[in-house]
């Protein structure tokens, strides 16, 4: 028994069909509890007023936007090294999900920035690097769309993902160097001083759990779709041959 057994598409379909409802239910539950708790039952911040409630969407989506790229990187490496098709398809499935999370983080950030910083958009390092991250996602998705041969597409997007990761990190430091930011520091560091207060912290944790499960659900769902697409193509090809 090893983890690579799940690289078999059939095994993956069996396992994921059991896991998917649980992940979906968990995501729904966590998001419902976390967002309702955050929206209705937390006090306003003395400085930010009620806009502090946006944190329950902003922080988890930003966190998962970066983690989604990391997951794509790992899946791409697995595809390049071990040639497991499920891995490549999972990376493909994660792309649009990551892009959406990035957009959510950008939109919520802009809406929060308007009353707090007096502007929808500032060329702050964190904001700018998120915009660049969105561009990386767009390029990655577009490359998947453009190439017809599935194996070539998987190979090339994997190479792009790896090179892109290096450049994404580089860009992060470049924009840091380029402009000092308005954005506050880490809201989740273990350092108590920097952290947000407990009243906001616990619902935030629930929301983060919800976003993680939502990501898992969507990736499983979309990977299953991709596997089915691949099977339809294979069957149709066989039909044409016969």
């Amino acid at each position: 028994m090893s983890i690579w057994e799940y690289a078999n598409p059939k095994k993956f379909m069996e396992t994921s069909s059991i896991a998917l409802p649980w992940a979906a239910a968990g995501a729904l539950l966590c998001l419902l509890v976390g967002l309702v708790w955050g929206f209705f039952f937390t006090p306003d911040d003395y400085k930010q007023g009620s806009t502090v409630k946006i944190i329950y969407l902003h922080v988890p989506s930003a966190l998962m936007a970066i983690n989604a790229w990391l997951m794509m990187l790992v899946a791409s490496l697995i595809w390049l090294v071990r040639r497991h098709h499920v891995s490549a398809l999972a990376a493909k499935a994660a792309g649009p999900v990551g892009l959406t999370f990035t957009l959510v983080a950008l939109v919520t950030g802009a809406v929060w920035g308007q009353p707090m910083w007096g502007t929808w958009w500032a060329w702050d390092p964190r904001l700018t690097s998120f915009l660049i991250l969105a561009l990386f996602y767009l390029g990655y998705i577009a490359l998947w769309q453009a190439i017809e041969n599935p194996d070539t597409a998987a190979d090339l997007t994997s190479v792009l993902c790896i090179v892109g990761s290096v450049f994404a990190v580089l860009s992060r430091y470049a924009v840091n160097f380029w402009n000092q930011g308005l954005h506050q520091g880490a809201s989740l560091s273990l350092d108590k001083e920097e952290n947000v207060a407990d009243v906001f912290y616990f619902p935030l944790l629930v929301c983060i759990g919800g976003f993680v499960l939502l990501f898992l659900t969507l990736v499983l769902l979309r990977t299953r779709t991709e596997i089915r697409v691949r099977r339809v193509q294979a069957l149709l090809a066989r039909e044409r041959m016969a």
Partner: protein
Amino acid sequence: MIALLLRDLRLALRAGGGFGLGLAFFLLVAVLVPLGVGPEPATLARIAPGILWVGALLACLLSLDRIFALDHEDGSLDLLATAPIPLEGVVAVKAAAHWIVTGLPLTLVSPLLGLLMNLPPDGYPLLLASLAIGTPALSVIGTFGAALTVGLKRGGLLLSLLVLPLYVPTLVFGAEAVRRGAAGMDVATPFLLLGGITAGVAALLPFASAAAVRINLR
């Protein structure tokens, strides 16, 4: 490899297009921006480094799809892939040829355009130096983008989408070097970082580009 470099250069010169086109585009940017922004010298001087860098970057982007496209069409890319020199070397030579045809002339005419953009006098040597150090990175990164899209019919727009985010660090450090220099600040840090990017990219990216070409030829 030198023979290959000479061949690429000769082809680029004879085909004409890419060579003059990039330069003409660069010139157009430098003419159009003042028309759009307004003629006040102070404003132009402030945005000159950024505009010139963005112009150079876009001009470079224009000719990227030609790096592999012609060789792919007539099959000489397949021959190069099976040639005794490693494909990584071929890719590096292609990037070098692209730089000599676009990056180098851009660098050389940039002071002239700096004049049009009313760049402060201190900025000229820095502009020249930062473009000379930075444009090779643009060519090498661009070659990687071109390698990813070799086999595609309509790769042009996709190529821009793939390459532009990768250009961000080079652009930031390049323009920052000139801006800081024009403002009389210390320029060693951006220059070192820019040089670091160019060196690192030139050393490592040809491997990724060669891998992409191999995948596309498979």
